[in-house]
Structure formats: C-alpha cells, structure tokens
C-alpha cells in the first residue's frame, strides 16, 4: 500500500516536472477585490444580480460612460445622443466597434438589446416599453420614439444598459436569455472573461479593443485577477502584503494603517479618505404611531448625532449628510436649495428635539424617563439593521442612545438579513437604516424614486416607511417628465420636494457611505485620487462604467 | 521446602497513610502441598497473593523475605521479579473470567504471551492440548475469542494458561467464589489433580470459604486483619481450632457449599478493625469473647503443637 502510494507520487512528480506552470507576471497583473462575494457562476448581463463583476463594463459596454465627479456622460458605444424633439431621441452608434468574435457592432445590436425587453417582458429593463413606442433604425442612427418620455429615467438608462450582440443572442431560448449563465461571454469591451475558479475571476486584456484605436485608451493591466474574499481581515492582510492592488472593501482601521503603511492609497490623503457613494437613511415607518406624526419625525432628526457616528464608527472615513441627503456630486447638488434648507433644515440639537416633542404633546407622564404619546400610551421603538452589518450595528446603537437621551425609548436590534428584508418590505419595522437606492447617479430621480417609491402591497424597491403623499408623488413624476436640460423647471420642482421632505421628514439622512477604495502602491501607481487622475474608483458589479474602467487606463506599473 | 515467607510486610500507600494489609506474616509451604488461606474479605489474603506476582503502587513492600526453592524473591524490584513471574510463580486471579484480552483469539494470545517470555509455542503446543483435555476443554477453544466461552470455560482456560510453564508456586485467588457448588468441586478437583501430576509444585488456595478448603487443602492458614493467626493441617484446624477467631469462623460455618459471600459472619459481632494505623495488641481483641489484659500486647505466632501455630495469648499462655 505504502509502496504503491510512493510509486504514484513519483509518477506524478516526474510528470509534473515536465509541465511549466503559467505564472502571471506581477507587473502586468492587477489584483482586485470587493465586488465578488461568491464563486463566479454567471456572466449574463441580463441578470445583473448574479453576473460577476466586470461582466458589464469590462466585457459588455454601455452606450455612454458616466463620470459622477464631473457629472458628464462620456460617449462610448454611442458617439452622441440628443433630443430632436420632445418625443424623439436620436442616438448615433459608433462605427468601427467590433465584438470580440470579430463581428462588427452596429445599431442593429443596440436595437436588439432594447427590443429584447419588448419580446420578453421579464427582462429587468422592460418597463422602458411602457413609455417607449418604437425604435427606428437608419444606418448607424437610432431614433427612439416615445409615447410619453420620462427624460430622467431615460438618461439614467443611457449608461446603465449593457449592449449585447444580436447574432449570438437572437437564436437563444427565452430561458437561456433570462436565466442562462452565458459562460463564454462575447462583448465589445476592453477585456475577455478568460477563466475562473471558485475563488477568482480572471480577465485578460482585449488588445483589439476599439477604444485603443479610436480614443487612444489602453488599460494598463494585461490581466485582472478579481479575487473572492470572504472577510475584511483577509482583504486587509492581502493589502498589507501587497497581494491586493485595488480593494473596494470597507476596511476599518485604514486611517490608522495609512500612518504606518505608506503603500496604502486612498482618494483623499486625509479624512474623509473616501469619496461619498450613497446616503444612509433612517427610515421611519409612517404607518405606525408615533412615526405617523411629522413633528415626531422631525424631533428624531434633531436628536441624532451623526457626527458621533462618523468619528466613532467610521473613523472619519465618511461625511455627515446634508439635511437633504444629497451626495456632494454636481448632478445632485445643482438642485440643492440653500434657502429651503435654511428655512426647514435640521441639525443635531437634542434640546430642540426635546422642545419639539414637548410642544407636540409628547411628555413623560408616568415619570419613567421617556415620553409618551399625547394620549398617554407608552412609546417603545426598535431600530433595525441586518445582523452582521457591523458598521450599521454600531451606528444604530449610537442612534438608540441619542433617541433615549431626548426621551424617546428606542432599542437597537439586529434581525438576520432575511427578516430585516421582510420587515422592510412588509412594513413591520419601526425604524431602519437603509441605503439600497441612494447611490450616486446622473439624476436625482433615482434618489427620489427610491425614497418616494409609489405604494404597493409590498415595498420592495424603496419608500420602506410607506410615506404616502400624493403631492410628492406627483412632483416626482413631473420631474421625471421634465426635459433633462430644463434646469429651471427641474429646480422649481426640486425645491418644492425639498420643502416637503424637510417639513415631513419621512426619513432622516445620516451620513454618506463611502466609495470604499484602497489601492496598494507596491506594484501599481497613479491610482485615482484628489490630485488626479479623476476617475470614480469603482469596481463593484454593474458600476465599472462610472470610472473603474477608465482608472485602468491611467494606472502605471511602479518603476 | 518450596516456599518460605518471613515477616512479610505489604502496605498500601494511601493519601491518609499506610494501610497495613499484610503485616509481619511468616509461614512455609512444602513441596507438593496445597495451602489454604482463609479469612474475611479485607483480611489481606488477596493482597498477599497479589504481592507475590504484581507488587506495584499503591501496594508497597515494607520488609520481610520470601524464598522460593531457596531463592529469595526480589519483591520490591518490579523488573527483576519478571524472571520469576509465570515461570516460577503463577496466578489464577479472582477475575479469571475477564483475564483474557477480549479481542484476541485465545490461542494467539497464548502464543504471543509465550513468545514474549521466550518460550516457543510450537514446542509446548502438545502439552497445551493435553492440559486442555485435563480441564475438559476442547482444542477448538484456542481458535475462539474469550467471549465465545462461558465464564467457567474461561476460568478453566486461565487455569491451563497459568500452569503452562509448570510453576513452582501457583496462587489461586478466590477462584471458586463465583461458581455454583458442583462446579466449585470440579475446579477444586482439577487443582488437586494439577498438583498430583506435578504440574505445579505447591499451591496457595486463597478463599473466604473455609468449606472448600476441606476438600483440597493440606494445611490451612487463617488470616485476620493483616496477620496470620493460625496455621495447621486441615484436619487439625477443623477438629480443634485454637484461635478464638478460627473457632468462631468454623462454628459459624453453614452447611458446606452455601455461599455467604459478603455477609458478616453470623456468630461474630462487630467488624474487623481498620488497617490504617490499627490499634496495638491483638487485632482481634475487640471482638474476642475471651479477651484479657495480655491481649493489649501483640501475640506472636507460636507453635503450640506439632505443625500447629497460633497467635493467641491464651494458647501461647497455656503452653508457656
């Protein structure tokens, strides 16, 4: 038995000595992490929830890129797009673009991508066809005729739809399109999906990429190894060892470590280190007492010390939100109405919170140290975040103590994610932190659409607090129907919405979660930063087009 | 003289002190003799037989001398004793039924045991067959596991194993206690036969059951609380026991063969003294019906008539 084993071992060793392992040249390879949380199994851009990060962005490309820092749509597969009249949008499709199988990418492919959602209403972007009438193709020009154009929604779609090759997809069954793995994706992008294993996804540069010729862009890494990492401490360890170049993890301790390890790069040299990516809101369930009372909700807003959360929990890696929850990006801030905020905004002011409560009749009648409803019944609220989301867990502990400090009896509780989701969707919670739809975009419509999503039986896509105000729903709809460049009308609508929001306070903006990004400069340099190059350093699934791809073109191997 | 025991002291080392389990015991065993050793449980008789084969902590050798065929036994030296074990002194233990490795076939176990003692199994295999026949065991038991045999069969197998190397001294420790009367008799007869056939030179038969000794013992030694209190030929001791303890023991005997294990002797009040720091003087004095002042001194084991020794001031006094 032992002998047999030895013989086998020798055979294997002798055999393997003749094989050379393929080892990636370090200077040509970029190791990235933070956007992949399980084994790669899906490269289907039609199922963005399952697709491996990079499927959209590195392999499949959008019509436009979007730069949130400059608030600019960058022509990509389309060279231009404009409204020729109020109901017609014209796209010029770039010429000379090829799919990686050599077939040219044409307007036909773009049209096919849109038509797909009409053929199969189960496609995730099929709601377009509720207000889109038809697409007309003339050479490389596509004319979109709308029934009732939703300008803001349309502009958002311009950089969020992956264009797929017609010749490879039209023959597929409905099931293959909507649920298939699309294992050997053929796109038009800068990288091929080369290979994968259960703990990594490997992309290899497409040296025939159209943008090299047309835009003079060359992604520096010949190979991207996107690694699956289960825990923060492994990611941190790998960064310290120089084994992870780009990390989009939230890593506690970065400010401290930056002091000792000079190889850790962040966007800002000092606090807040990170760009802001989305706003964390405290949703209040407006169908439950006393959160149905706007006065009470406003008191809550005054009571919360977000500054404390920022320093304690996030070590100043985040910024405290403005009272509207607008991210500090031009696309949003252009509508920020100082006067409205001045008039109706809030700041951390426990005394004011107490005053508001007292004036509205919330008093401590039974002397237990907490206020009761005006009718005398007790208040006992719970704030929920999913168990295991540690930064939020610490945050709501602080919020709960803030609320108790002004006399509102609140506890932090941590249900498992499934239950958290159910409570949110079914409106069973009291208060909850959420940020699912508040990430940076080119229009405030995405932000408000999430915040004031119209009411249904279950709130699966936003407005978890079930805030019911026909006026604000109407304003939002009106905003969506306002031409994208009609700033004046848009601003008027926005000011009204801001006023209602601040007066009614259906949810309290707390802080901006960061665009978590740490780069290791041991192998690569010229990472995006406040000193340039200015690219939004995002490698999360579905968001490479916001700057992640362009970041690659500016990287340089360290000398 | 085959065996001579002189002033043997075996104590148990415990956390509270030493338990004087065998205290200053002296006697001889002649060739071809079966010596019965009797007494209540805890009197030291088992300690004695164990100390000759396996003296290890907490048992402690405190002094005395044991000679076997003129050689002094290195009792305190565990290693040196190995030369004597099995070859010269052998044991049929109280736990004979569980004395065999449960996961080895008996034959194989014997072979391994013998090999480890430097004896070739093949040479002895014929003799083994003969002896198995002697105890009414079929040869096939060699191919069996212990659990495949009944308790009695296992015990007989152990008898064969224990005597396989023709030891000078065989110690049989309470081997009949768990058996029914007829089996007891059969086992006793076999042992006598072993002796008669010269398979063992001398035999110490340890039991709490005097009645069985009538059948096999040549002489009987009565132990009480770690001391030998009386030694005499079997007939003599049954007819004219001298020590008050022996007398009570014999008079309280129920009909032969009735088990009284674990029960207090009916006629004797009280219980044996603890052997941890026992009181001075005769150890039976507290229970003795004929006690007098002298009993506060320890009585020597003295020869009162031919082949009859007793440790009692009354008897010693009579003669002296």
């Amino acid at each position, binding site marked *: 038995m032992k002998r047999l084993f030895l013989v086998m071992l020798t055979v294997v060793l002798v055999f393997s000595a003749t094989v050379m392992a393929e080892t990636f040249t370090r200077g040509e390879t970029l190791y990235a992490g933070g956007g992949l949380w399980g084994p790669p199994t899906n490269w289907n851009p039609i199922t963005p929830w399952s697709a491996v990060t990079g499927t959209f962005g590195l392999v499949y490309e959008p019509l436009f890129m979007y730069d949130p820092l400059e608030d600019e749509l960058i022509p990509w597969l389309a060279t231009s797009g404009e409204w020729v009249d109020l109901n017609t949008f014209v796209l010029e499709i770039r010429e000379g673009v090829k799919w990686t199988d050599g077939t040219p990418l044409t307007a036909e492919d773009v049209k096919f991508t849109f038509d797909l959602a009409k053929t199969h209403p189960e496609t995730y972007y099929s709601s377009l066809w509720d207000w889109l009438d038809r697409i007309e193709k003339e050479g490389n020009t596509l004319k979109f005729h709308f029934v009732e154009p939703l300008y803001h929604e349309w502009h958002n779609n311009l950089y969020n739809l992956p264009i797929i090759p017609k010749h490879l997809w039209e023959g597929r069954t409905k099931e293959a399109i909507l649920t298939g793995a699309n294992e050997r994706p053929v796109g038009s992008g800068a990288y091929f999906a080369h290979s994968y294993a259960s703990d990594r996804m490997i992309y290899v540069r497409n040296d025939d990429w159209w943008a090299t010729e047309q835009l003079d862009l060359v992604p520096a890494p010949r190979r991207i190894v996107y690694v699956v990492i289960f*825990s*923060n*401490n492994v990611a*941190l*360890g790998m960064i*310290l060892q120089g084994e992870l170049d780009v990390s989009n993890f939230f*890593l*506690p*301790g970065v400010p*401290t*470590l930056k002091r000792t390890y000079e190889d850790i790069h962040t966007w800002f040299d000092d606090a807040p280190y990170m760009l802001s990516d989305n706003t964390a809101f405290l949703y209040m369930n407006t169908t439950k007492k006393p959160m149905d009372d706007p006065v009470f909700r406003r008191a809550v807003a005054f009571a919360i010390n977000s500054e404390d959360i920022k320093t*304690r*929990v996030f070590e100043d890696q985040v910024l405290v939100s403005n009272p509207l929850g607008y991210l500090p990006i031009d696309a949003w801030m252009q509508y920020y109405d100082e006067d409205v905020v001045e008039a109706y905004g809030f700041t951390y002011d426990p005394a004011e919170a107490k005053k508001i409560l007292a004036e509205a009749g919330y008093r401590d009648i039974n002397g237990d140290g907490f206020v009761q409803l005006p009718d005398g019944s007790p208040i006992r609220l719970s704030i929920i975040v999913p*168990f*295991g989301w*540690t930064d939020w867990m*610490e945050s709501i*502990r*602080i919020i709960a*103590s803030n609320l108790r400090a002004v006399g509102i009896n609140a506890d932090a*509780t*941590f*249900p*498992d994610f*499934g*239950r958290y989701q159910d409570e949110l969707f079914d409106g069973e919670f009291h208060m909850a932190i959420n940020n699912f739809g508040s990430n940076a975009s080119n229009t405030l419509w995405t932000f408000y659409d999430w915040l004031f999503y119209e009411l249904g039986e279950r709130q699966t896509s936003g407005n978890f607090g079930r805030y019911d105000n026909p006026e604000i729903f109407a304003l939002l709809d009106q905003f969506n129907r306002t031409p994208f460049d009609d700033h004046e009308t848009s601003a008027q609508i926005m000011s009204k919405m801001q006023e209602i929001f601040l007066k009614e306070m259906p949810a309290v903006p707390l802080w901006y979660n960061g665009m978590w990004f740490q780069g290791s400069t041991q192998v690569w340099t010229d990472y995006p930063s406040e000193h340039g190059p200015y690219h939004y350093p995002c490698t999360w699934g579905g968001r490479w087009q916001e700057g992640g791809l362009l970041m690659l073109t500016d990287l340089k191997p360290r000398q | 003289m085959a065996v001579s025991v002189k002033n043997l002291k075996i104590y148990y*080392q*415990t*956390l509270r002190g030493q338990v004087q389990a065998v205290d200053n015991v002296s006697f001889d065993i002649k060739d071809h003799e079966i010596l019965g050793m009797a007494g209540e449980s805890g009197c030291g008789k088992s300690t004695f037989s164990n100390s000759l084969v396996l003296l290890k*902590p*907490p048992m402690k050798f405190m002094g005395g001398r044991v000679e076997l065929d003129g050689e002094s036994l290195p009792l305190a030296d565990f290693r040196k004793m190995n030369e004597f074990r099995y070859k010269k002194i052998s044991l049929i233990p109280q736990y004979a039924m569980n004395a065999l490795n449960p996961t080895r076939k008996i034959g194989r176990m014997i072979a391994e045991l013998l090999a480890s003692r430097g004896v070739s199994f093949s040479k002895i295999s014929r003799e083994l067959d003969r002896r198995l026949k002697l105890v009414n065991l079929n040869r096939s038991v060699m191919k069996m596991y212990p659990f495949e045999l009944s308790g009695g069969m296992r015990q007989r197998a152990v008898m064969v194993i224990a005597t396989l190397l023709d030891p000078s001294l065989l110690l049989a420790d309470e081997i009949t206690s768990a058996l029914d009367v007829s089996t007891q008799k059969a086992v006793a007869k076999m042992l006598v036969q072993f002796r008669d056939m010269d398979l063992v030179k001398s035999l110490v038969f340890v039991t709490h059951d005097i009645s069985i000794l009538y059948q096999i013992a040549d002489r009987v030694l009565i132990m009480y609380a770690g001391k030998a209190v009386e030694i005499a030929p079997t007939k003599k001791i049954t007819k004219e026991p001298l020590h008050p303890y022996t007398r009570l023991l014999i008079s309280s005997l129920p009909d032969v063969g009735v088990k009284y294990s674990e029960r207090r002797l009916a006629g004797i009040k009280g219980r044996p003294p603890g052997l941890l720091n026992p009181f001075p003087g005769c150890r039976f004095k507290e229970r003795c019906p004929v006690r007098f002042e002298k009993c506060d001194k320890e009585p020597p084991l003295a020869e009162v008539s031919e082949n009859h020794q007793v440790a009692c001031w009354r008897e010693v006094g009579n003669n002296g």
Partner: protein
Amino acid sequence: MKKNEFLYFALRNTRMQIGLGIVLFFFAVMIIGPSLTDYDPNEYSGPAFARPSEDHWLGTTFFGQDVFTQIVYGLRATFIVGAVGGGLATLIGLIVGFIAGYKGGILDEILNMLTNIVTVIPTLALLIIIAAYLPYRGVVSQSIIIGCIAWPWTARAVRAQTFSLRSREFVDLARMSGMSSMKIIVQEIAPNMLSYLFMALILQFGGAILAAATLDFIGLGPTEGISLGLMMQNAVLWSAIPLGLWWWALPPGMIIAAIVSALYFMNTGLDEIFNPKLREM
C-alpha cells in the same frame, strides 16, 4: 464508597483543583465583575483604541467600549450557554440513551434513528428559522438550540452504558421482583451512572461554550447583548489584530480556552476520583 470519601479525593486531586479553581475564578469574575465596573458593556465609555489603564483595565475597543466590562458580561452569556445548552444536551441524551439502552428492540432502533437524524440537521438553518419565530435571538435561545443539537453523543454513550448495566445481576433481581422499568432506571441504573453523567455534563458544558463561540463567530450569535464569541467576532471584523488592539482581540479567546480546558481538566480529575483505578498515588 461513601460520599465524603469522594469529596476527600476530589479536594485532593490536582487536576480537579486546578480545573475547578479556574472555573470558579471566572465564575466569581462574572458575579462580582459588574460591581467593579461603572460602564455598560456596549456603552461608549472612553476614548477609542485606549490601551489598558486604570480607567479601563483591559483597554477599550475600536469604538471606545470598555473591554473588561464586555468580558464580565460576556462571561455571563458563556456560563448560561454552558449550563443551559450543556444541561439540556445531557438531559435529552440521558433520556434517549436510557430508554434506548434499557428497552432495546424496536424502540432502540427508532431512537437510534432519531439520534442519527439529529446529527445531520443543519444547525445553521435551524438557528435562522428559530430566530425568525422568536422576536430576536438571545443567549438562551442559542443555548436551547445548541442543547437540542448536541445531545446525540451523550445518548450514544448512555445507551452503551445502560446496555452493559442492564445485564448486571442487580438489575435482573429488581426486574424479577416486579419493579417497573421506570423505577429500575431511576433507582437502580441511574445511581450507577451518576458519576458518568456528571462527567458527560461537564464535557457538554464545555462543548456548548465552544459551539456558541463558533456560531457567534460566523455571525449566528445572539442578536442582543454581549458574549465572548461576539467580542471575538467584532475584534476580527474591526481588524483588531492588524491594528494592534491585542487587549481586545486576545482576552475573549484566551478566556474561552481557559474555561473550557479547565472543564476538561475537571473531567479528567473526576474520572480519577470516581474510578479509583485511575488514581495516581
């Protein structure tokens, strides 16, 4: 052997002394600890990252919570998990094992099957489900789940013991004299197994503590309160080791290791006490 004799040996067995000493020490810390600290376990009572000092004996966490206070309250969770989880596991194992071993036959096979089924039930999923029906997961519910899942090996061992005991003379005697099964189990078999059970309880106690630590670590710990396992989880999630917060990262693990190995020590000690053959003089 008499009871005081057990006690006598128990108090003189070094392993028992060491083990019991450590366990009692931490028990005492748990009892008197809260009076030694002015803080709440999750309260931000000081500066973040503070090294051990007079104000914070074991320093503070990433957020400025007092580590010593967390340990004191965490110990409570640890002992509750041990007592409730370990106790429940022993109790169920005892009942199932007894009945299976004593009755035998079909009942035995069924219980044996049950034992096998329980060993393959997914603990994780069960925890989440139970959490869904309880308002939130607490230390006690965690203990109960651990108890409901850890009993099979005790059951197996008890069953084997009962098997061997029930064939002994005294049980036969009892049976012949017309005692009911229950009575036989309670009056005849159980006392003979008491020592054995006591040791099983100790092992289950330690096992439950470790199981809870693992669950806490992978994020299935109590969703309320504090436990040593949660402290470890937090320390890891907040990179306490690379950040050099050893006073936060190390003590919880060390304390669990100390308590559980002390329990195992006690177990070996007890083994020697109940089983005179094993005593080393």
